[in-house]
């Protein structure tokens, strides 16, 4: 059963709109610096909240470098490793990789890095589209608890959490507000 919003209470707010903007600005500089310019970069957002984040990073990189890097959208549903475990099949949405990624530097973008399983699925999906020179990972929040040997190259903020907590990244495009929250299961919630 997916957790219902109502079962969760907000425990702490770790970033507001300004905080998110600053993290993304720093990450965009780091991406350009690490890759010695924007020329070979393709940003790919993982649905759902990786998509608006990737779009914002592309805008920021244009402000810094004056070039627009290509933007892709990845839906990892078909590559999930838990399809046999869920009773109802999750909704599949389209994947849009508008450019040839052979030989490019692909920067995957997601909101939260947790078990690493989403990123594992995204790597498999991406490799079906070509052979990038390298794949890097940018996330807004790294909350720990990895179950796979995966790490992020660019991190907005490291947030130590317990497994009972949930990190909610709220973005204007998806949620109508800008905030990063730690939510916890309420007293009446299931354990």
């Amino acid at each position: 059963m997916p957790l219902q919003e109502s079962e969760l209470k907000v425990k702490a707010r770790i970033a507001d709109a300004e905080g998110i903007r600053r993290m993304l600005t720093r990450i965009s500089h780091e991406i350009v610096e690490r890759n010695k310019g924007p020329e070979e970069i393709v940003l790919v957002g993982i649905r759902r909240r990786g998509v608006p984040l990737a779009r914002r990073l592309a805008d920021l990189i244009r402000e810094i470098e004056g070039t627009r890097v290509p933007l892709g959208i990845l839906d990892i549903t078909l590559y999930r490793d838990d399809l046999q475990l869920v009773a109802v099949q999750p909704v599949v949405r389209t994947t849009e990789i508008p450019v040839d990624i052979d030989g490019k530097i692909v920067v995957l973008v997601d909101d939260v890095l947790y078990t690493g399983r989403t990123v594992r699925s995204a790597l498999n999906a991406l490799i079906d589209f070509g052979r990038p020179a390298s794949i890097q990972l940018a996330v807004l929040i790294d909350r720990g608890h990895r179950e796979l040997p995966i790490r992020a190259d660019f991190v907005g903020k490291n947030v130590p959490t317990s497994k009972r907590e949930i990190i909610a990244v709220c973005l204007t495009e998806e949620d109508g507000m800008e905030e990063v929250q730690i939510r916890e299961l309420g007293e009446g919630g299931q354990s």
Partner: protein
Amino acid sequence: MNNRKDLLGLEEATVEELGAILDTAEAFRGVLDRPIKKVPTLRGKTVANLFYEPSTRTRFSFELAEKRLSADSLNFSASTSSAVKGESLKDTVRNIEAMGVDFVVIRHGASGAPHHIAKNVRASVINAGDGQHEHPTQGLLDMFTMRRKLGRLQGIKVAIIGDIAHSRVARSNIWGLTKMGAEVRVCGPSTLTPMDVEKMGVTWTWRVEEALEGVDVVNILRIQKERQSANLLPSLREYSLYFGVTRERLRRASPDVVIMHPGPMNRGVEIAQDVAEDPRNVILDQVTNGVAVRMAVLYLLNGNEPASREAEMATVEG
């Protein structure tokens, strides 16, 4: 499709289910344009394709959909199987299921054969055409093709022309399209039209010109020579004269009319040579889209076996 084990027809499908299948098919249509047209989604699942009637398009389309999803396919055709030794349908399917099959795709000459099987096996059953009853994945791929071309189904005008009485394609189209809010007209000789066709929510006329007036889509059905035993038609030539869709007749339709045919075409009978070659026809798009729609159906039915439903119920209650 949340709790459905089988896809037997569109008559019993809900608007939400039809919408979910068409939306999901859109994502799978994208997979077919990739350099590697295969996803690992149904790895480890097995599909038995049981075709008791001849088929090229539908059989290939299902098989391709299964392979693109990384499922293992078993193919059966009636002429080379134990069916010729007199084994009953139920026994055949039970034996196949004992081999650990997760899906059964079946085409059969008897209306209701897939329903009979669905009641007797735990595997998900997909109807690939049963007698004169339904061909749900064809109905879905026709709707998917229309929606891609026109951007919507609500309010579009569709003419279905030909042998409605023997056509499972017509029935699945009618059930699906009327549910999604399209206006459907059927046209054909009265001997090839079911008595109560208007009860299905469509209008009927024998005048092709009238049926084509202002339509956004014309779906031309194949005259099924193999089912014309009872002298329902004087001759194919006469059928063509009165009901054949020609470019001249199509002038009454919308200028951008979408021309469809489920195949195989009898050129010069139900569809004139120039219409079969008309740039407005989407007959080959229908074939491509068929693979995406069948992938969507397999994906959405996956995991919906009774056992997991019960388990889910138990969790909810617990």
